[in-house]
């Protein structure tokens, strides 16, 4: 999972003018936005679930134990996300094969 995509620290040398450059620039922008949106969804969910799991009774500050729990929870959530993703993609390709390789894009899941 590419969390943040490639960081685009490199400023554009000149504004793209050829068809090739415009295409490349558009693709890069879309990639960045997709990676950012994916990261935002993930971070939101990690926050929600790990706050639930690790900070049952919020005190005046995070304890060391809570901090450790949060780090572990975050790593576990990412692992869990990847396992869910593998299971989902495996099932979807299995189903699409049994439908004779029908187009998946029309199936709303």
């Amino acid at each position: 999972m590419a969390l943040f995509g490639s960081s685009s620290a490199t400023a554009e040398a000149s504004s793209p003018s050829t068809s090739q450059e415009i295409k490349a620039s558009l693709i890069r922008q879309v990639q960045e936005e997709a990676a950012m949106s994916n990261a935002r969804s993930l971070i939101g969910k990690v926050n929600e679930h790990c706050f639930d799991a690790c900070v049952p009774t919020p005190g005046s500050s995070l304890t060391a134990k809570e901090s450790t729990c949060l780090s572990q929870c975050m790593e576990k959530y990412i692992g869990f996300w990847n396992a869910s993703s593998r299971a989902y993609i495996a099932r979807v390709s299995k189903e699409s094969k049994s439908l004779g390789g029908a187009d998946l894009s029309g199936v709303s899941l």
Partner: protein
Amino acid sequence: MDTQTQLDIAKLNDADRKELTQYLANEAQKSNIQQTVHGLADICWKKCITGKISSGRLDHSEEACAQNCVERWMDTNFAVLKHLETLRGQ
């Protein structure tokens, strides 16, 4: 985000335009799948990770639970659609 340079889309030639259309369709599908997985991980985390978190690693039973949860969620999806189909025929 960074300051977006104004792009003159009119300068795209037909081949690049076609390639971009295909690229965007692929990205949209990828993004859809990712959003579904975000939803699934959310639902299944609630069912599978109920105890105290004592390690950052996903253990075997948790991984198996994730897989079963996703599979049964898909089964549920199909079962609902199937039953809806019979209701419509009545």
